[in-house]
């Protein structure tokens, strides 16, 4: 019985982590942290979109900018799709807009990694529902 509970808990943690990676904020949404979920979604999505707007989608390139790509893919699997479009359409980015775009998209990815870890930690300790309930009572 305990083994089953442990397995269920592990599956729950994996679900929270995967949801948080696929859609920024979704991990917090699953653990009843609705306000945090909305803030995370808006902030990370806008930061990532701003990076793409400044430097074009050419800033995501898993071959020429593979080191940046490691951070960028942490925003969402959508970064992988954008990388595929960039390379198939041969879209390039250069100079200062490329620098700014890469920094924005990579920082968005690293911030989402922080949120994924936070969501999994809250789900692991069970604090998510507890805090969510406290916030409802405020």
């Amino acid at each position, binding site marked *: 019985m305990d083994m089953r509970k442990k397995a269920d808990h592990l599956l729950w943690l994996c679900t929270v982590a995967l949801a948080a990676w696929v859609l920024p904020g979704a991990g917090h949404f699953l653990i009843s942290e609705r306000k945090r979920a909305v803030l995370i979604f808006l902030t990370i999505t806008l930061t990532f979109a701003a990076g793409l707007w400044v*430097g074009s989608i050419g800033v995501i390139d898993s071959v020429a900018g593979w080191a940046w790509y490691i951070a960028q893919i942490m925003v969402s699997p959508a970064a992988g799709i954008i990388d595929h479009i960039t390379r198939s359409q041969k879209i390039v980015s250069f100079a*200062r807009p490329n620098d700014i775009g890469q920094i924005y998209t990579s920082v968005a990815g690293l911030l989402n990694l922080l*949120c994924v870890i936070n969501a999994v930690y809250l789900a692991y300790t069970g604090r998510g529902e507890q805090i969510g309930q406290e916030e409802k009572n405020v």
Partner: protein
Amino acid sequence: MSDLLLTLASFTKPLEIGTTPASMLWMFPLLASIAIIYKTTKLRVLRWKIFFLETILLFAFLSGFMILAAAVLNLLVWMITS
């Protein structure tokens, strides 16, 4: 429909930003994002008033630190090159 296509097309061409001191202003929206996400994950209970206040304070602190770092580095370069 054409507006949507134009918007999407703007994501395939980089903006024109020169290597000027003004381009450093692009760091401020990023600092705001970092401050918002940090406080979103750190505050135990999210009360809007406290959240906004702490986020603004952190943003001001980060901005101040970055401006100070830029000033010190500029001073260092000026001392080396003059």
